[in-house]
């Protein structure tokens, strides 16, 4: 049996009475007080998640930009130092090896924050394709990462507003952090990166400022309400960005791995689409359930905000129009659902 890794905040989670579960080789908090109250805290005020299990890769050198331009789907020419971009690492078939955020630290230096479960594979993929003048390093163990998310998160942290997908170095209660205007909840917020040794102290300061500790359970229900795909569920090496609705992060007029296949799919139109749906009858959809007619649920949960079963899944293109009726096979019971426009949940302002 493989030993589970622990983040620098492990003792803090224990002390708070978190329920700890294995996740992508890590022992992680799935919940503290409960998924639903944690979810609501993020939608109405401010929550904090330990996401130190995520991977950090650094790519440096005069050819770092060129290397990443050839391997990532989005156009890094649009990103200046101080900026960041959501993008995909693709294979030759146009499949998605990972989805990630690239932060431009300096003209010739990037930080990629990648999914925990893909950290090693991403690192190997990039390392094997290194070109002279680029150096790829896995620096994941050097850092702790906290996501502070919610409509009051910026105010509670005493930060100023800044545009999404930017970053800056700030001192927060005496701790120097990389403050990233990114997240996975659909709310305003930041992700704070600090040296691993500062993680626990930063966590304490953030809790003192009133953030509610939140686990991976709420992280999943929050991201699904706003239809952010989860790699391994909704997207993967055998699914392409066009079918997944991620064409907007693929710059098809530049050259990168798998672009020819993506151009072909875009031109012909995908055979199936990743759609969002809301249950019209009782029941909670779950990953792997069949959608009669040739579809499959890739993520499902109970929406704490809408109080109804919600999910995402692939269906044949002709079934993908919003307002179409679907059936979800919930352990042998056919339950009706309705295709909806993404996101499923949107704040009423």
């Amino acid at each position: 049996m493989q030993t589970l890794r622990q983040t620098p905040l492990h003792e803090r989670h224990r002390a708070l009475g978190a329920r700890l579960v294995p996740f992508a080789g890590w022992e992680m908090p799935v919940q503290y007080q409960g998924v639903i109250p944690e979810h609501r805290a993020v939608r109405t005020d401010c929550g904090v998640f330990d996401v130190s299990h995520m991977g950090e890769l650094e790519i440096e050198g005069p050819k770092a930009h060129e290397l990443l331009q050839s391997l990532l789907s989005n156009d890094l020419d649009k990103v200046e130092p101080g900026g960041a971009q959501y993008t995909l690492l693709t294979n030759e078939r146009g499949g998605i090896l990972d989805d990630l955020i690239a932060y431009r630290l300096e003209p010739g230096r990037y930080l990629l924050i990648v999914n925990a479960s893909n950290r090693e594979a991403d690192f190997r993929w990039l390392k094997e394709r290194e070109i002279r003048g680029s150096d790829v390093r896995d620096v994941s163990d050097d850092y702790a990462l906290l996501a502070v998310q919610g409509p009051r998160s910026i105010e509670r942290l005493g930060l100023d507003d800044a545009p999404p997908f930017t970053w800056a170095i700030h001192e927060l209660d005496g701790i120097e952090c990389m403050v990233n205007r990114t997240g996975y909840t659909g709310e305003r917020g930041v992700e704070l990166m600090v040296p691993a040794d500062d993680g626990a102290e930063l966590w304490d300061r953030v809790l003192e400022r009133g953030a509610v500790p939140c686990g991976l359970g709420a992280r999943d229900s929050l991201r699904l309400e706003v239809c952010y795909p989860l790699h391994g569920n909704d997207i993967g090496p055998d699914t392409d960005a066009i079918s997944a609705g991620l064409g907007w992060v693929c710059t098809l007029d530049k050259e990168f791995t798998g672009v020819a296949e993506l151009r072909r799919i875009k031109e012909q139109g995908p055979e199936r689409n990743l759609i969002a749906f809301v249950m019209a009858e009782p029941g909670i959809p779950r990953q792997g359930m069949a959608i009669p007619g040739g579809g499959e649920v890739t993520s499902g949960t109970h929406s704490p905000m809408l109080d109804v079963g919600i999910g995402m899944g692939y269906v044949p293109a002709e079934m993908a129009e919003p307002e179409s009726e679907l059936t979800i096979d919930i352990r042998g019971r056919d339950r009706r659902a309705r295709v909806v426009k993404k996101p499923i949940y949107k704040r009423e302002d």
Partner: protein
Amino acid sequence: MAADESYPEELHYHREHDWARIEDGEAVLGITWFAQDALGELVHYEPPEVGATVSKDSSYGEVESVKAVSEIIAPLSGEVIEVNKAVVDAPETVNEDPYGDGWLIRIRLTQPGESDDLLDVAAYRELLAEQ
């Protein structure tokens, strides 16, 4: 609000964390405090239909939290004579009051002698201590 941990004396317990309150040839069934705590806040209850037959040690329905689904195991055999609609409408009632308002079904017992196989509270607590 979630209830405090408790296991009433008068109930019969099944090792799959279900309870039965036996009254005059009928029984009210539910899940124990331990079961609801392990699942977390319930968001869905899939009950059997009135008139359906339930068999001891077999599943008669499902409860789900945001993260997980769990089958509900019948501690006794019988015919379903009532389903708790309040739990269908508000599954969190099970977390709030697992032995009271959070009951799940009422059955007419078809094999009353089966209750001899169930655990009393001391034996059930012993089982929990081993987990």
